[in-house]
């Protein structure tokens, strides 16, 4: 009976692994990189490589409102994102009478000079969205695929534990020098067992975050049974609310956008809006139509920060400035707690009086904790690095799992059927392919060096085309090598793509030096700037590892 169960779990593990591992590797790889998305942004947007050490707190009334007054005439909402350590610039976003799509400008945190447009998506707007929706936004297809893969990952983790016969006896066993297959399986078992708490928690929380995508009708079912809204402070008609919500999404900060997008997908029904309003406290105030002045905002921040600590406010949204019904909402940063604090403080724009603020329920707090430990928006560098290391470990887990299947079959002489060859090519594209593609994304960013467009294509898009182009090229290369020589072609493909990774990584470091003058000696010692220095170091390390792997692979081929 027990063996029968094991056999069935083994079958599940094999098939789920074969089908989903390529996708899972892409998700875990981009997720691991997203741990340092803001640092990658700094590397990709050289104008924003700014030291915050000497920055003083800005005065909203004296320094920021004048900037808005010049630019944002007739705007229905202002968004002010204050500079912070990982996002060292001031961002202002505002709509205009002509378009409700917000314009977004960045300013130097000290001089308040406007910064040039970044002309890149950076990691926060490409690698991070790829992690949760594969950049397939239409009908949430990408998010659903990620959801299916995550469910598969949970099955794989549990079935893997079931079929592992010697969990405790082999707990620390890592026989690296006993041939590739042995070492490969040991790495797979070790990372699978040792990182199990991390992988389970991160996969499960990832699924839970996007609950509104996976169960889109749940709020409808609940709220349809209830009477019309009872407790909300403002109750605009649903249509108005949807329109204003749309505007909010357009105007809101880069982080907030991503978060709502990751959580809720793109469309909201009235019931969903109500669910979000009641659980998250996100309600949009309406204009009354009576003109009024904007009260001083600095005292509001001071009042909030005297209660919650210095630097507690990271973003200020002024809805309907110049209207008597306007509201100033102060959003609180999550630097010092795992869960994002969503109890935003609200003040009347006209009078400066504090309005009732939202108190999240304990259910919401639990959810926010679970979501918060997935988002890692908090300020905790050791934990951020541990997530990164554990994420790389999870990537190794997935990669070794894929290799285990093909390697067992590659070693049987004369049994390289189509399925084995196909999986060989698949593995190469799934593992070295996406790593090369990520490198190419960085290289092209530095080649374009902040120009707006090249050959009529905007730089923002060109970088993404480079990513997918190189990934596709890696797949083609793997297919050609594997099907030209079914017996040994895959090794050649692995070795060559490892060389490609090394070349790309070195090129990225070199191009960063040439285009910005920030070489490693400078960013490490003379003008220390950790985000760029660390990314360069990681690139150099990956190049060294790739060269080592390529050399090992060619030695095996000769012997």
């Amino acid at each position, binding site marked *: 009976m027990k063996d029968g169960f094991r056999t069935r779990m083994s079958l599940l593990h094999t098939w789920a692994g074969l089908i989903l591992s390529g996708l899972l590797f892409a998700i875990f790889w981009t997720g691991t990189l997203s741990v340092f998305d803001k640092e990658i942004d700094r590397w990709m947007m050289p104008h924003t490589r700014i030291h915050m050490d000497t920055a003083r707190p800005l005065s909203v009334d004296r320094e920021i409102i004048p900037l808005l007054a010049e630019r944002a005439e007739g705007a229905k909402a202002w968004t002010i994102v204050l500079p912070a350590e990982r996002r060292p610039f001031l961002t202002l976003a505002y709509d205009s009478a002509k378009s409700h799509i917000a314009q977004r400008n960045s300013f130097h945190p000290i001089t308040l000079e406007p910064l040039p447009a970044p002309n890149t998506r950076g990691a926060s707007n490409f690698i991070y969205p790829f992690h949760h929706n594969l950049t397939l936004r239409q009908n949430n297809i990408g998010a659903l695929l990620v959801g299916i893969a995550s469910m598969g990952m949970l099955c794989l983790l549990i079935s893997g534990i079931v079929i592992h016969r010697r969990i405790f006896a082999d*707990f620390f*066993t890592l026989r690296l020098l006993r041939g590739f297959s042995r070492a490969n399986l040991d790495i797979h078992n070790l990372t699978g067992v040792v990182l199990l708490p991390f992988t389970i928690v991160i996969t499960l929380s990832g699924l839970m975050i996007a609950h509104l995508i996976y169960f889109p009708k749940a709020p409808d079912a609940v709220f349809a049974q209830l009477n019309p809204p009872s407790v909300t402070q403002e109750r605009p008609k649903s249509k108005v609310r949807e329109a204003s919500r749309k505007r909010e999404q357009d105007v809101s900060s880069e982080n907030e956008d991503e978060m709502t997008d990751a959580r809720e997908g793109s469309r909201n029904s009235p019931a969903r809006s109500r669910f979000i309003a009641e659980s998250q406290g996100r309600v949009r105030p309406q204009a009354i139509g009576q003109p009024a002045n904007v009260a001083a905002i600095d005292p509001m921040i001071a009042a909030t920060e005297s209660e919650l600590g210095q630097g507690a406010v990271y973003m200020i949204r002024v809805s309907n400035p110049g209207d008597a019904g306007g509201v100033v909402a102060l959003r609180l940063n999550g630097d010092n707690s795992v869960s994002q604090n969503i109890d935003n403080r609200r003040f009347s724009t006209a009078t400066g009086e504090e309005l009732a603020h939202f108190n999240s329920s304990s259910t919401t707090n639990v959810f926010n904790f679970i979501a918060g430990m997935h988002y890692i928006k908090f300020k905790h560098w050791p934990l951020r690095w541990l997530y990164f290391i554990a994420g790389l470990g999870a990537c190794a887990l997935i990669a070794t799992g894929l290799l285990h299947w093909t390697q067992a079959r590659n070693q049987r002489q004369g049994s390289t059927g189509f399925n084995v060859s196909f999986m060989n090519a698949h593995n190469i594209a799934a593992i070295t392919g996406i790593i090369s593609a990520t490198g190419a994304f960085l290289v092209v960013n530095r080649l374009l060096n902040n120009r707006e467009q090249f050959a009529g294509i905007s730089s923002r898009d060109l970088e993404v085309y480079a990513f997918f182009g190189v990934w596709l090229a890696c797949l083609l290369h793997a297919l050609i090598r594997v099907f030209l020589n079914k017996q040994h072609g895959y090794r050649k493909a692995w070795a060559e793509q490892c060389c490609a990774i090394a070349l790309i990584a070195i090129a990225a470091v070199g191009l960063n030096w040439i285009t910005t003058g920030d070489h490693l000696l400078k960013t490490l010692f003379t003008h220390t700037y950790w985000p760029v220095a660390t990314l360069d170091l990681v690139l150099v390390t990956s190049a060294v590892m790739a060269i080592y792997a390529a050399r090992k692979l060619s030695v095996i081929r000769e012997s």
Partner: protein
Amino acid sequence: MPKDLLLVAIFSTAYLSFALFALSQVRHWRVVFDKALPTQREVLLLRSLGILMLSISLALSLVRDGASFGSLLWITMIGVAALAVALTLAWRPRWLRPAGKLFSFTYPDTGRVNHKMNQVKG
């Protein structure tokens, strides 16, 4: 600085606890001690000390960062510490001898730390 020191202490205690767990297994025991097999008592003692160390590292995490950050830090840290012990055993098993010596110190009846490298059988 005490926060950094605590971080080092959290990792060290977690690493030590997994090192002790590893030493309680025959395969890894042989690398460090000159006796072929650990006795039942030694295994029990090694494992209890391991659990003790693991609890100390949890306590230190909670002291350093409070309940929410502390528990997250500990969970991720023990995974990385266990990986580090496995890598040590794969490449430089002798590095676990200090842990063995430490153990001999707490339990003098046990075999002396072996200075000849035993062939690892596994």
